[in-house]
């Protein structure tokens, strides 16, 4: 149950930031989805939807996506799908319902660093930076790991364009459920990035395993060894959706599928 005492429409990003940090009980409203699932007493709700933060700018070297851009816009963006092998579409399409996709925003998702997020896992295997209003540009990997230095707000993210191949894999008990585990793999130039999320903890890069994959082909031996490395490199846990043991084994299985897919994209 949430209560809100005041509702504020900021006139600019700085205004929004100042209002947010005025009081501890103040909070940002992005898309607003899932807000009421928490238990909060909000003093002033600062609504970002009036700010010009909804855009996907395709520049020569990368994409800049405003914080208030909804998932449906990202999912359906031609350029993003073309340049990233529909990586984001694959990650986002699992979110149940067009309605939620029209409500959930990139900024809120990144800031929340939710463990169950499929989108964050996919984003993590691209070269992405997050622009926070106060802190400035932070690599996504760092932001997911540490969170913001202080209360802040996401202005936009920037995804570098590189020639690469991408794959997103997920496993769930039923089509509308959250992931038991998710995994994304990218090969940009010769470098692999491998991320696993819903471990149940949030998406994290498996650097050692990614390095191991370099210059290798998806043979049975490679997959076996890579899977073992991955199971050892990241922390997996048990919750209602799955046990630790199963998640470890599935990380292996999804890695195999992702590796095959990335290799196929290359050809």
């Amino acid at each position, binding site marked *: 149950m949430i209560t809100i005492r005041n509702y504020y429409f900021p006139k600019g990003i700085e205004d929004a930031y100042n209002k947010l940090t005025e009081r501890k009980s103040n909070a940002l409203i992005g898309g607003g989805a899932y807000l009421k699932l928490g238990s909060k007493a909000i003093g002033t709700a600062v609504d970002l939807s009036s700010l010009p933060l909804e855009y996907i700018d395709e520049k020569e070297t990368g994409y800049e996506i405003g914080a208030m851009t909804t998932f449906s816009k990202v999912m359906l963006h031609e350029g993003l799908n073309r340049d990233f092998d529909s990586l984001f579409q694959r990650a986002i399409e699992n979110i149940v319902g067009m309605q939620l996709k029209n409500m959930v925003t990139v900024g809120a998702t990144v800031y929340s660093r939710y463990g169950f997020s499929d989108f964050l896992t996919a984003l993590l295997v691209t070269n992405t930076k997050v622009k926070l209003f106060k802190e400035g540009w932070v690599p996504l990997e760092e932001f997911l790991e540490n969170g913001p230095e202080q209360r802040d707000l996401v202005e936009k993210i920037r995804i570098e364009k590189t020639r690469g191949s991408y794959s997103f894999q997920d496993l769930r*008990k*039923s*089509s509308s*459920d959250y992931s038991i585990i998710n995994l994304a793999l990218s090969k940009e130039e010769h470098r692999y990035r491998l991320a696993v999320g819903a471990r149940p903890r949030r998406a994290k890069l498996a650097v050692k395993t990614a390095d191991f994959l370099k210059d290798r082909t998806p043979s049975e031996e490679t997959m076996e060894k890579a899977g073992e490395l991955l199971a050892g490199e990241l922390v997996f846990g048990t919750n209602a959706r799955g046990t630790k043991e199963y998640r470890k084994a599935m990380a292996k299985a999804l890695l195999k599928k992702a590796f095959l897919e990335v290799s196929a994209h290359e050809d």
Partner: protein
Amino acid sequence: MKYVNDSIKKIDSDALLRGKGVYTDDLSPKDALWIKVVRSPHAFAKILTVDDRLTMRVPGVEMVLTYKDIKRIPFTRAGQNYPEFSPYDKFILDEYVRHVGDDVAIVVAENEKSAEMGAKRLKVDYEVLEPLLDFTIAEGHSTLVHPEEDNFIPVDSAGYQREKNLAGEIGFDIGDIDEALEQSDVVIRTTYESQAQAQSMMETQRAFSYEDVYGRLVVVSATQVPFHLRRTLARALDLPMSKIRVIKPRIGGGFGSKQSVHAEVYPALVTKLTGKPSKIVYTRKEVFKGTTSRHKMRFEVTLGATKDGDLLGIKMNGLSDTGAYGEHANTTMGTTGKKVMPIYNKVKASSFHGKAVYTNNLPGGAFRGYGVTQGTFALESAMNELAEKLKMDPVKLRERNMIKKGETTPLYNLIREGLPPEPVYMNSCELEACVKRGKERFQWDERNRRIEREKDFLKKKGKARGTGMAIAQQGSGLPKVDMAGATIKLNDDGFFTLLVGATDLGTGCDTILSQIAADALEVSMDKINIHAADTDLSPFDSGAYASSTTYTSGNAVIEACRKMRVLITEYAAKVLEEDEEDVSFQQGKILTSAGKELSLEEFSKVITYSLVYEQLTATGSFVPKIPVPPYMAGFAEVEVDLDTGKVELLDFVGAVDCGTAINPALARVQAEGGIVQGIGLALFEDVNVSSKGKLKNNSFMQYKIPARNDLHRIQIELIEGHDDTGPFGAKAIGEIVVNTPSPAIIEAICQAAGVRIRSLPATPEKVWKAMNNRHYVPEK
């Protein structure tokens, strides 16, 4: 027949799809007091103190009620015929809370926010007791879920033993099972378990009440059982039944969840105490932890057969977890044998024994299939195991042993009280056609050959496919138990009002009963106005359960119409001054042998305003005399991902014998909807409880029901059948449709991946662990 067997659009369709305010909450008075129920966080506890000081300080809160404020009267929440086979073990509020979510206190306020805030601020002190959560050790356990001695059961034979935590016990034996097993060449001994499943209808429980102009208590509720509700409220509130009226508006689904008394008690009580209108709307969370779900059950099944595949004996031992309250416990346990075993009528012996035990888990209740689903899962899975052991095609094994048209089994005479001693013949049984047509539509032989051919190719991709099938029966109403009434009244412009007690919960029975009436009277459907489920106006009807609205209520409608036709003829003779033999009522017109004609409109005006001055009304009642089961065969093809254990259902064919389909489109949707619920039961739905008895998935975010992408292809074959005892030959379809998916899918998984999943649901992790020989430990 003009309307029967026609896919007519539902008569309430426009109102529903246009979003008209026709559901319970839409009709609630704007000034109604809001009620919120404070629920227990503990699985078993004694309430020590309730401090409402902070609650009463919330602006708008009017009062707080605890067990101390209410007269202590035990009742059962079960919507069942009286006397109920369910123990009277519930009090409106009690000193003990017996499951997480059990009601503790009632907070009443001017508006929803105040009620919510007031409920949050209520301080309750509990003595937390050690809960009993394992149903396998519940019987005779030192922890008594119901230590109070003033509860009882109105029916002695139900096997109720409170001091042993036994809510019900049933057994029946025919023939000598030990001998039959001894004579068998092959014996299968196996155990199957199915989980608690939440009905998950889209509209939660809600009700409101008010005092009418005569000072009577009117309760408006989304209930499946208005008459049982009236009787139960009268008892619980210590009011004469004559002072209560129950009205049912449109319902947003029920599937059995609304076949118990839940939300209604609170507004009824509050209005009784305050004289003011009051309402409650259950949150989804409240539905999950405060109502009921399908009983979790475990079965030990023993089958004995000759090496040629003749089934000689079936033994089923069942254990059901009825949770904290015993409504529907005995009856759901009983049906797992009574409406499952008769399908194999050629055996020498059948033995059934079932026990339903109390635990501090969430209560079990009615859910489409009502025990038959769980029993069918166990027996049909065991039969598939038998087929494998015999190296016999599972379809052939069924065809050899299942009941066929015109056959009987002495089981029917044994298990149903009040039946005639003569054998009960399944004269309308089209199970053979179900199996044959289902097999053809599914292309059983060709598909299995194809799967065999593609096996290696699929394996390289990490996948495997397999098929499975199962058969099932259910019932059409409850013989000699539940009755229905219908009254038909002729209005003074030649149209009829059809009053029925039957409850349309979205299934379309208002439409179906109108179709039946129209054809029974031979008038056009626009001459029938149906009015249903208002205990002041409607004739008695047990309600929407046991697959009874078409068969039982439909027959009552036919009887009423038959009587009306006689009345019309009788009074037409008076009006026309003819002998009755020379007058007939056909195609909506009154005709004489001399060639005179009188329209129904003219006739009704004449008898109302002059000449005769009579109101013509006719009432028909009907109770089923014998079991008239619908039958079904289900066929499934799955693909298993060998790396992850994930199961995709590629194709499901359901062939249903429901007798005449009064409305084929509605019958087909029943089949599709039921099959999809069966898929949820088989593959992922699971009421997941922690080691402290707390429900882990108490929202649609966590408890997932099938969504559109969870199925690929579902095909329905409606077998044309006809039962002479049914209205225009109809039987039933409401429940049977949920019974075949689980055993068929489990078998298909076995054929694909070589693993037999013995407890539902077959989640990816379970399948994977079975494939990798890892013992599955459910997450606590």
